[in-house]
């Protein structure tokens, strides 16, 4: 990030051996503290009962590998349904959030346009004062959204912060291009769809990731607004099986071929992580200064 070339500039002195070693040690420790637990969780989810028993719990050294836990999870039941709920809420929610946010950000991307300041003020005010949990809950229940999937989407559908990031990026686009399109008679909708959006793939990908991860990870809104356990998203199921130790239905009854309960729990964790790991590499390269700093500097 700092310099493209990987050589040391001539004026910079070579660090001593002790400095090099301690630097490497700290960074290795940091990396291990992130990847180590994840490694053990994935490995345990793939291990047979005998391997888990001989390891005394979490597995670090690979032993007998089996997919039993995953087979049991996808064979239907609570986890499968929770995954479907989470995927659905995430897909619909992210789409809605992106459409609303991109439109709003573009609509606000030209200072001096009609009602620009009052609209921006309406947005920003919500960042300074939040109404609080009780009135929000009373509103959602007053609207009759309790026990509907909309309760998991609408209250958190827009993040003003994300809109401001998008707006900052749209404002940075060269005005000349947009003006010439306007002179050629293109409508604002067309300019947004055919010029601005294709130029903003990186920032929209990052914002979509922010929204998507937000929906996928949301936990407490389901605790508040969903009472019907059949409608629970994955994070709530993860909590009850892993943190509260609730038995996964059918995990004893299956008998001989049943996956061990620890492996099952770890498999649920893995299921919750995998979608993030799948999307992350596609977007990670865009987390550069450009996207974030525009937001921080306002």
């Amino acid at each position, binding site marked *: 990030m700092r310099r493209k070339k990987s050589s040391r500039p001539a004026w910079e002195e070579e660090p001593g051996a002790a400095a090099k070693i301690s630097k490497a040690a700290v960074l290795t420790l940091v990396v291990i503290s992130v990847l180590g637990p994840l490694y053990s969780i994935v490995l345990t989810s793939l291990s047979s009962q005998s391997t888990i028993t001989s390891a005394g719990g979490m597995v670090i050294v690979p032993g007998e590998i089996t997919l039993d836990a995953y087979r049991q999870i996808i064979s239907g039941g609570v986890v499968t349904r929770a995954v479907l709920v989470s995927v659905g809420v995430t897909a619909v929610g992210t789409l809605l959030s992106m459409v609303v946010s991109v439109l709003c950000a573009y609509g606000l991307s030209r200072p001096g346009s009609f009602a620009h300041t009052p609209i921006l003020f309406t947005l920003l005010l919500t960042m*300074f004062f939040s*109404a609080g949990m009780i009135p929000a809950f009373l509103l959602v229940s007053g609207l009759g959204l309790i026990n509907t999937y909309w309760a998991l989407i609408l209250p958190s559908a827009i993040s003003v912060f994300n809109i401001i990031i998008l707006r900052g990026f749209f404002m940075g686009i060269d005005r000349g291009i947009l003006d010439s399109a306007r002179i050629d008679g293109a409508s604002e909708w067309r300019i947004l769809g055919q010029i601005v959006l294709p130029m903003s793939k990186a920032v929209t990908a990052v914002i979509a990731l922010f929204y998507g991860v937000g929906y996928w990870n949301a936990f407490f809104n389901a605790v508040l607004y969903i009472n019907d356990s059949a409608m629970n998203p994955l994070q709530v199921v993860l909590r009850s099986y892993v*943190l509260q130790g609730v038995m996964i239905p059918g995990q004893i009854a299956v008998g001989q071929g049943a996956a061990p309960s620890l492996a099952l729990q770890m498999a649920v*964790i893995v299921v919750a992580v995998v979608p993030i790991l799948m999307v992350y590499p596609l977007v*990670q390269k865009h987390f550069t200064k450009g996207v974030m700093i525009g937001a921080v500097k306002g």
Partner: protein
Amino acid sequence: MTTSESTLTASAVPAPDGYRQGRPDRARQESISIIRKRAGLRTRLRRDRSLVLMTLPAIALLLVFAYIPMLGNIVAFQDYSPFVGIPDSPFVGLDNFTRVLGDQGFWHAVTNTLVITAFQLVFFFPIPIVLALLLNSLLSPALRSTIQAIVYLPHFFSWVLVVSVFQQVFGGAGLLSQSLRAQGWQAVDVMTNPDTFLFLITSQAIWKDAGWGIIVFLAALSAIDQEQYEAAAVDGANRWRRMWHVTLPALRGVVILLLILRLGDSLSVGFEQLILQRDAVGAQASEVLDTFVYYTGIRNGDWGYAAAAGLIKGVVSLALILGANKLAHLFGESGVYSKS
């Protein structure tokens, strides 16, 4: 880079249609105000109709899910009952507020909240800075971006997941206890120990977000002019003096900005994180303002009372943000917002 370039071209050529661009200087502002007067309100409405239309869905969502709840805070002044509804619930003036302010439990939650904020400010806040300096000193871009990708990752995990991961490592049946038992020692369960809870939640927050926190600092570091380092080196400054006189001053603005944001947010401390672990360690150690509101209001049905506690939190937070921003202006920093 691109932004400053476009501002430059924009200020050279006045916008023909009367739009303001970027942050105009004073001379340009005057010429723009002339243009703006020429473009009357009605003309501008006709011209910008579609722009305004585009913001409407977002405004509608905010009105319903952010502004109506603000009005809903009226229940803080009522003896609210969900069966009667807001219009018919009796008003009780400031009764709820006097009850809240006289409640030991409320003050206990306030104390816990502030202790957690202060603790994390001391032990969490410096870590991303150190990590960013370390990463920035790496010469290999490939290694640097690999490590970045790894340390950013936990930011995208849910709190349920983070707490689950910690339980597998530090819980009674976790990796730590396992290896202690294998050595013939007593197993420990950090997850249920109220005495070490402060350390536990801080290390969880560090694990989840310290990596993500370095982005801002890396960007600030990359903005430093390399010639400053070279000039300092030529003047005989060693690497520590270069860090002290070049690097750290360059990070000052970002540090102050982040401190302000944190200060304004100091009454909110990891609500999901705490509510997930409240059962394990008990309310004594884990009750904060947000959990207090949840348990008194939604769990126990004391709606007006909980809303009053929440409203106190909201108003104090607002004051904190405005105050912190004022403070930043006094330090000569731009803060979160400025008057322009």
